[in-house]
């Protein structure tokens, strides 16, 4: 059975090493913080100027001046800090952030990423995606393996406008976790009941075991 969005997020969360600083994009990535295992210290960064971002507790009233990059009310944990946009992107571009987790429209064999525009329609805009994807030490993608109509999203080459070139290290999809080394991809894990053939059929480039 394929993983749900929450299961993808949980899987990602369990793979983030203790002590890492992580920037999370919109979509499935926003679910990741709630699945970080108890006692593990992962620090979340949002490019609008917050480090140590945590989900709003249920009993906490939202502060309109404390939001994440998706414009949702969030809170800040002990040890966190606020800063302006130029400092925030210094963190991102300067390689100070261990991991970025983003959604994707398409990922190419080369690790190129398209996640902000189909050729017909710009989603929101590029936002901070190009900076994050080019700047972080590692980039993981959280996505459904194929589009709703079954179209492949993992392709030899992206056909949508690119966000960044040769940046994706891993893909966490509903079907599998894949890892890239240059132009070679291998399976890290398959979702329960999914077999390699199924993943290969749903993917536009070769996958090793």
């Amino acid at each position, binding site marked *: 059975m394929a993983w749900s969005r929450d299961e993808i997020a949980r899987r990602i969360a369990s793979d983030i090493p203790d002590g890492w600083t992580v920037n999370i994009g919109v979509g499935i990535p926003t679910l990741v913080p709630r699945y970080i295992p108890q006692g593990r210290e992962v620090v979340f960064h949002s490019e609008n100027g917050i480090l140590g971002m945590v989900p709003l507790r249920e009993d906490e009233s939202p502060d309109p001046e404390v*939001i994440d990059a998706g*414009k949702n009310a969030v809170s800040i944990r002990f040890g966190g800090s606020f800063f*302006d946009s130029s400092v*925030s992107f210094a963190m991102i571009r300067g390689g100070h952030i261990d991991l970025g987790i983003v959604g994707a429209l398409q990922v190419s064999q080369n690790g190129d990423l398209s996640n902000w525009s189909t050729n017909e329609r710009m989603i929101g805009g590029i936002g*901070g995606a*190009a*900076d994050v994807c*080019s700047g972080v030490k590692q980039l993981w993608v959280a996505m459904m393996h194929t589009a709703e109509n079954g179209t492949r999203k993992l392709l030899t080459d992206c056909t949508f406008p690119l966000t960044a070139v040769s940046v994706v290290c891993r893909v966490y999809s509903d079907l599998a976790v894949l890892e890239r080394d240059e132009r070679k991809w291998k399976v890290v894990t398959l979702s329960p009941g999914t077999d390699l053939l199924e993943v290969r059929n749903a993917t536009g480039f070769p996958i090793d075991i």
Partner: protein
Amino acid sequence: MGVVTDKRESLHKAISAIDHGMTVAIGGFGGAGFPTSLVSVLEKRRLHGLTMVSNNAARLEPMIESGMVARIICSFPFGGASDTLRKSIQNAGVEIRLLPQGTLSECLRAAGSGLGGVLTRVGIGTEFGEGREIVEVHGKKYLLEPALNVEVALIHASVADRWGNLVMRGTARNFNCVMAMAAAISVAEAAEVVEIGEISPERCDLPGIFVDKVVKTA
């Protein structure tokens, strides 16, 4: 004598600095640090041909609808934008110039810091690198993105004093600091305007030297 450096002004007087065809930066990221009072007054003026520098277009909808906006320089125009807004932008022929968010921010800071531009690797190999000059430093290629000066910046703070010193809260700093730096005239709104000396020199998010006018929000 002695209280001459007083940047406090009325909302309307401050906004009157904006004229047809100017380049105007609007601070804020989502609602955080958005200069609501200043923008609501600007919206009522009958201006045209404005170039807006603003991370997002959704909050500019009234100005777009009334035909004030010729161009938007931004990174995330359609975040939270309705289909109506998308259509208005298309119908009004509003030009959208897209920059990666960090590049936008850094180009504003560069303008305010007397630097010619920004050398970044962000955008290389994508359409954000198209048409850009490439500068090589120590064997690595960088895009040259020119500094982005603006004529007026409208920004938001929690607390201000008559010198324009500002304190911001939470994620409200965002573009507000770099836009004030980049502007020939920067106008800050604040809910609270305090006496000189009440803002600690250690806790001033933007020194008053970058701020030209201070407006108390209604």
